């Protein structure tokens, strides 16, 4: 939701800078997603140091200005510049409206910025000369710190706060936060002597669906474009101005939060507007030109036809056109749940339905109507017919007991009754004795806890004292701890944990030879790959193998949920591929069985067939897999409490993003002392350059031919640049440095 700072000033005098206002809104619960200030922070205060004539233009001069850091040359056409003045300087890169200030040559002289006039900064209409700033403004500071300018605030309004979907709503928040109050001008209308009673009446068939419906009639209007100020406000909110009638309805919606609708009165048959439920399969062609079949909606109808889907969108049969001279303005309150249901069913969420669904200010329906009527008359002329056609059965205000003691206890704040009352008053609550009357716009306030939140958020969450928790009881060791222990056992044997997507696509099902009747199916996936839930971890892990062709040996495991039509449980799957695949998977399973005292029969190791490998696009010749129900396995595990301690990784991690550019591979073999850990060498190599993407040990063996107590260790070294293709020369230099480092640090010798 976009809010314009200048618009808020219709209601409250704001003395806050843009960032102060954002901060206040943020810490009181209105999240500010962005602030676009009109005055760019690259417009700074600068001092004119020197002025020279322009060699090629009589009207231009060359000024040397100091921006707090350096002297800049700026070509200027203003007649009123003088040495010693403080002036607003738009530096290179500053944005003034849609224009970005760039280095330009003006009649042969390069200009490094612009000294600005009032209109260029959006601060007024004066273009006669540049603004001369007061002497106390500090050189180099952004001008926005000193002068008022406009800004657009993009806010995230949570679904409970429909009242904040308007400028008056945000003005109320700011009033409460700054201890001020908003001023709402009463509306007086200049009305015609004719009475609406003779021309229009309202009938509501069920007031539960529509507690209030009001309409005014204006005759003799002239439809045309809106004035610039109105167009500008709407455009800044991202709306397209249409005409002076429609624009007023939109203006009032963003102003007061009350959605309005304007009908061409001459297109309404008869003298009565009837608000009713739809008939079965009734059709309405809406303003967007779509004919819609209505299943469940409140309709606005005349004698013969539906003219609008209440609270959602008007009908195109009664739309305002250039020829319209008589306008009926509708201002109403509809049942929140009904509007929500209709908008969902039609897939038609509009600014109006969005607000009705969240609840409008039920106390301001008539005010909004009057404000719109007044504005339309001002902008489009015509006569407002006296009186309002209406039916209403407005719900009374909610009253709530203020539980002062409970509020203080829950928040830990020790606030006096009068302090709590003051805060509630500032938010529009009326307090009588220990009761408060909830304002008509706050549909979210239902219980004393809601009041506690109001009090605490305005008073300040930062004033709440943290309270330590008492008595710590040793937690029970649940399944989670057993799963983590099993993961450790696998990682210790060299296996890498994958977390794969738990879905299967149609293609994946075919490749894995699964039957859809065994699978849980997602009814509404927006991506085709999310159509089914996996009933096995293996297809995912086989894809994982296929994705890593550059590794000689691939050892993966995954622990995760699998789903059948009736059930879900944790599975464990292990896969191995490449050289030594069989040995590795057998060894890890053997170890798990010994460690957790489990019979090996629970594990079933299978080699994949050539056909299966092809289906999964795996290039490795040997692949083994094993999968079992981990929940069952855990029930068999016998360990002591200590084994279930969670272990943290002590390894220092220096994460490097995976580069998209091709890698250069070099192999190096070293002869080192038998006692040296290959992992220590590996770590050292990795740290030699940021461009070493990966180091992989591929050979390690002892032999007397290297000398007593010596061994051979060999690594693949992958060199890769994050932003471009690496060149051979760079790789050579790094490899040289690797050799030098390893030879020095580990007393190693390169094996040639």
């Amino acid at each position, binding site marked *: 939701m976009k809010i314009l700072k200048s618009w808020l000033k219709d209601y409250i005098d704001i003395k806050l800078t843009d960032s102060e206002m954002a901060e206040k809104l943020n810490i009181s619960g209105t*999240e500010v997603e962005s602030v676009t200030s009109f005055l760019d922070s690259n417009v700074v205060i600068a001092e004119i140091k020197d002025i020279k004539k322009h060699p090629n233009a009589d009207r231009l001069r060359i000024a040397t200005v100091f921006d707090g850091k350096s002297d800049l040359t700026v070509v200027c056409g203003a007649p009123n510049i003088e040495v010693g003045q403080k002036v607003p300087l738009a530096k290179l890169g500053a944005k003034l409206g849609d224009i970005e200030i760039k280095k330009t040559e003006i009649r042969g002289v390069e200009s490094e910025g612009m000294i600005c006039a009032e209109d260029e900064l959006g601060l007024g209409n004066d273009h006669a000369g540049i603004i001369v700033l007061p002497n106390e403004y500090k050189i180099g500071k952004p001008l926005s710190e000193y002068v008022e300018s406009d800004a657009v605030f993009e806010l995230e309004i*949570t*679904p409970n706060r429909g009242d904040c979907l308007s400028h008056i709503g945000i003005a109320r928040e700011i009033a409460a936060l700054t201890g001020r109050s908003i001023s709402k001008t009463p509306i007086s209308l200049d009305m015609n002597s004719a009475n609406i009673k003779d021309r229009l009446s309202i009938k509501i068939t069920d007031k539960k669906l529509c507690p209030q419906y009001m309409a005014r009639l204006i005759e003799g209007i002239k439809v045309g474009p809106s004035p610039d100020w109105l167009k500008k406000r709407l455009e800044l909110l991202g709306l397209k101005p249409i005409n002076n009638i429609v624009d007023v309805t939109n203006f009032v919606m963003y102003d007061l939060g009350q959605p309005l609708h304007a009908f061409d009165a001459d297109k309404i048959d008869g003298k009565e507007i009837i608000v009713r439920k739809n008939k079965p399969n009734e059709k309405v062609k809406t303003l967007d030109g779509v004919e819609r079949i209505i299943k469940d909606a409140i309709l606005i109808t005349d004698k013969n036809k539906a003219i609008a889907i209440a609270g959602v969108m008007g009908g195109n049969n009664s739309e305002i056109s250039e020829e319209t001279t008589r306008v009926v303005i509708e201002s109403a309150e509809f049942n929140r749940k009904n509007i929500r*249901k209709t908008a969902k069913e039609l897939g038609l969420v509009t600014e109006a339905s969005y607000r009705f669904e*969240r609840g409008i200010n039920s106390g301001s329906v008539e005010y909004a109507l009057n404000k719109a009527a007044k504005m339309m008359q001002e902008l489009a002329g015509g006569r407002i017919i006296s009186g309002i056609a209406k039916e209403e059965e407005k719900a009374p205000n909610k009253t709530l007991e203020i539980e002062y003691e409970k509020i203080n*206890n*829950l*928040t*830990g704040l020790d606030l006096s009754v009068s302090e709590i009352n003051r805060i509630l008053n500032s938010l529009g609550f009326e307090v009588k004795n220990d009761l408060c009357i909830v304002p008509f716009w706050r549909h979210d306030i239902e219980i004393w*806890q809601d009041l*506690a*939140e109001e009090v*605490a958020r305005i008073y300040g*969450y930062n004033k*709440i*004292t*943290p*309270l*330590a*928790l008492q008595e*710590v009881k040793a*937690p029970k060791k*649940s399944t989670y701890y057993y799963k*983590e222990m099993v*993961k450790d056992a696998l*990682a*210790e*044997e*060299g296996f*890498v*944990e*994958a977390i*794969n*997507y*738990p879905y299967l696509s149609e293609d994946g099902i075919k490749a894995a030879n699964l039957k859809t009747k065994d699978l*849980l199916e*997602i009814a*509404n996936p*927006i*991506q085709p790959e*999310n159509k089914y839930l996996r009933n096995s971890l293996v297809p995912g892990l086989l*894809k*994982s193998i296929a*994705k*890593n062709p550059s590794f000689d040996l691939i050892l*993966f495991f995954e622990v*995760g*949920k699998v*789903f059948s039509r009736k059930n879900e449980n944790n599975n464990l799957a292990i896969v191995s591929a490449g050289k030594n695949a069989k040995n590795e998977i057998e060894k890890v399973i053997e170890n798990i069985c010994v460690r957790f005292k489990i019979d090996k029969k629970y594990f079933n190791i299978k080699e994949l067939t050539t056909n299966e490998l092809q289906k999964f696009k795996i290039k490795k010749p040997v692949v083994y897999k094993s999968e079992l129900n981990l929940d069952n396995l855990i029930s068999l595990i016998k360990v002591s409490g200590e084994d279930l301690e*969670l*272990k*943290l*990784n002590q390894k220092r*991690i*220096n*994460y*490097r993003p*995976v580069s998209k550019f091709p890698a250069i591979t070099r192999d190096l073999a070293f002869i080192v002392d038998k006692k040296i850990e290959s992992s220590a060498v590996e770590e050292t190599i990795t740290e030699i350059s940021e461009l070493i993407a990966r180091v*992989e*040990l591929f050979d390690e063996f002892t032999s007397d031919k290297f000398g007593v107590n010596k061994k051979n260790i060999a690594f693949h070294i992958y060199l890769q640049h994050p932003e471009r293709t690496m060149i051979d020369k760079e790789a050579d230099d790094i490899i040289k440095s690797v050799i030098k480092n390893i030879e020095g640090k580990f007393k190693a010798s390169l094996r040639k």
Partner: protein
Amino acid sequence: MQKGNLHPITQYTREVVKIFESLGFDVFEGPEVDNEWYNFDALNVPSDHPSRDVQDTFWLKNGRLLRTHTSNSQVRYAEKNKPPIKMIVPGRCYRNEATDSRHETTFMQLEGLYIDKNVKIGHLFWTLETFLKKIYGDAIEVRFRPHHYPFVEPGMDVDIKYQGKWLEVLGSGMVHPKVLRNMKIDPNKYSGYAFGLGIDRLVMLKYGIEDIRQLYSSDLRFLKQF
């Protein structure tokens, strides 16, 4: 010959669990496929209220759903355990969204719930501040900001100051009386707090990982770094 690797999400979750373990929280894991009651209605998120739209839900053909948050475990756990309740739920959650570098259809969340006599907002503040200091060091600045979650009242987001800017890391609040009643717990006798954090985002922050999809890519060049 080579040592393997645990997924960074597993490692980070352990760190978090260990901290809450030291504060006396039990670990519970609820179902990932659940029904509308536990995931929404029991948590004061009725289908006829716009708060339901905040989360894009995967619905299953059998009428059930993939949990959108670990909060589905709150009422389930409370049905089987009497207060005082002090538990955390690490687990996978789902959102029916188009994926990009910031959005995933699946992610790891960790829920916390504490219900006892006389639990106050100050207890929630202390717990989360203690947790964040253990993760980020004692110097970390923490702030609580009001926010709406239907299952808590008051509700708040928790920010930390990160590289000079406030960054949201947790959602939290005092358990809503309607939720306590759905747990068959008397809100006049008991109160509590709940919180939730997204593990994926914190892992990304910790290592400077730019694309969330990297976490689920099974790319050994990525996984072997952890």
